[in-house]
């Protein structure tokens, strides 16, 4: 009943698993507000609560980047969920015509993709499907499922958008795969990317959600990493216990911070008074210049 859908909006009040469109998820359909993993990361340094609040209050400023379109398109083709792709038969976005087509596609809720990028994404999906483990991880389940739960310690409502929700195996174990595209899928590069982007927080956030909702006796979270250039190598990684522990620690901090900001209505910036800072260690080396 599309007619009804246009005049009503989704609102989630109870913890559970929901099958809602990604844009509804990103707009936070949880009554009273909820914290997603990327929002939790925005509560912590090098971001700060005020930046989070501003981004939340000004969704129109959210940037749409080329890389983001590319990642979304890859998700779309691999997972079979999300917005449809519009193939633009042009070499680049420089011309006015190209830009018009791009804006038109976005306005229609589609992902604009240049022909050569589209070919790459198609090849990536094919490479992923021919990787036996990755293929198995994205089979026998449902794409893009939303988890909503209440964090026991802080009482904060949390939400997570699982790329692919599988069922439990015979040991009662649930493996949650998360699809990522990357320039390099090498161990060391990926480990650095995990630290830079806070993927350990994401892994813990999602694991926590599945555990809170009692989806399985044991929950494991793996990253299926695919390189963006041929031959589109696929690597599957799981973070070690130390990384997960750190992720949990930081998530707890973020949720506590969120809870207290919500309570007081105050969203502090980076620092609230004159603070003393020290130079990073590399800059204090004797042979270090000033740049």
């Amino acid at each position, binding site marked *: 009943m599309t007619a009804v859908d246009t*005049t009503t909006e*989704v609102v989630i009040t109870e913890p559970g698993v929901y099958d809602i469109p990604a844009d509804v998820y990103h707009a936070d359909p949880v009554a009273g507000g909820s914290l997603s993993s990327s929002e939790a990361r925005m509560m912590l340094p090098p971001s700060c609560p005020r930046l989070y609040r501003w981004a939340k209050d000004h969704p129109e400023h959210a940037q749409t980047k080329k890389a983001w379109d590319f990642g979304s398109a890859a998700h779309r083709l691999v997972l079979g969920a999300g917005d449809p792709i519009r193939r633009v038969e042009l070499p680049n976005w420089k011309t006015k015509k190209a830009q018009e087509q791009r804006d038109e596609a976005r306005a229609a809720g589609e992902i604009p993709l240049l022909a050569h990028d589209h070919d790459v994404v198609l090849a990536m999906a094919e490479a992923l499907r021919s990787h*036996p483990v990755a293929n198995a991880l994205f089979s026998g389940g449902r794409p893009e499922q939303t988890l909503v739960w209440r964090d026991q310690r802080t009482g904060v409502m949390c939400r997570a958008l699982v790329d692919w*929700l599988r069922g439990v195996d015979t040991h009662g174990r649930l493996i949650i795969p998360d699809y990522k595209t990357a320039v390099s899928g090498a161990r060391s590069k990926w480990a650095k990317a995990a630290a830079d982007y806070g993927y350990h927080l994401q892994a813990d956030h999602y694991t926590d959600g599945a555990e809170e909702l009692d989806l399985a006796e044991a929950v494991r979270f793996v990253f299926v990493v695919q390189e963006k250039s041929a031959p589109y190598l696929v690597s*599957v990684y799981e973070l070690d*216990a130390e990384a997960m522990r750190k992720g949990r620690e930081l998530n707890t901090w973020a949720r506590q911070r969120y809870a207290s900001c919500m309570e007081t209505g105050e969203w502090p910036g980076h620092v609230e008074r004159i603070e003393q800072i020290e130079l990073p260690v590399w800059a204090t080396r004797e042979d270090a210049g000033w740049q």
Partner: protein
Amino acid sequence: MAVNNSTQLDTHAPAVAMPARVGQGTAVEQSRAVAEVQAAVVVAQQVPRSVTTARTAMRESCDVLPMAERAFFRYKRGGAPVAGASVHLARELARCWGNVQYGIAELRRDDLAGESEMQAWAWDVQTNTRASNTFVVPHKRDKTGGPVALTDMRDIYENNANMGARRLREAIFSILPPWFTEEAKELCAARVEKGDGRPVVDRADDAVAAFEKLGVAQDRLEQKLGRVRARWSQYDLAQLMTVHRSISRGEVTVDDEFPRPRLSDGDALAETAAPAEAQAPARRRAPVEGRE
């Protein structure tokens, strides 16, 4: 004519550095220290230890469960667990052996250089066997990804005390006869294995309950021991007790002792049931623009 040794010494050896002014309290302490050392040595000669008595005392002590339980430590280094006799056992054995003095001294603390100079020593005053180790403790703690500098006074104190206790343990063990130490270790291990004498089944219940509080489920205990709960032995339970104490004391973490099994390709390829059902979200009427 007798040669005056002291004069000769004075001309050859440099004078011992002395403080310019010695207060009354210090003077008293100085003479007391000299007298105490002399007395200890003299008394040790006059009342030498009876090895039989020392052995009996050691056996009695090692037969007490709380003592036996503290006799071993366990921590992780370079990814592998390290286990051995603890400083508690060392101190207790020194007491039983008798005529032994031991101690730890912080000789100098240098906050600028971020290190402390320390000494741990143990002295068998009867045989005059002395083990002493002077060492430098950097004000740092090893963490994953490299050492971290300690700046809190309390952290530095605890780090120094910890490092001192380890050297003291080695010092005491190095002056005690190896047979004495070995027998004590065997007795303590046997005592811990015997536990409080209750049936294995009851003790297994306790162990499972205790580990549950640490967030470790029974299957992880079974996996570590390689046996299902019904087949746990006294020895298994003794091992679990040591692990539990080490986790409680923060020497090791739960994940160090009970690593999660690594995911294999087979795990990913395994058959799975249907995923959890999705709930329908509630809907509410969206505010219609222009009506307010």
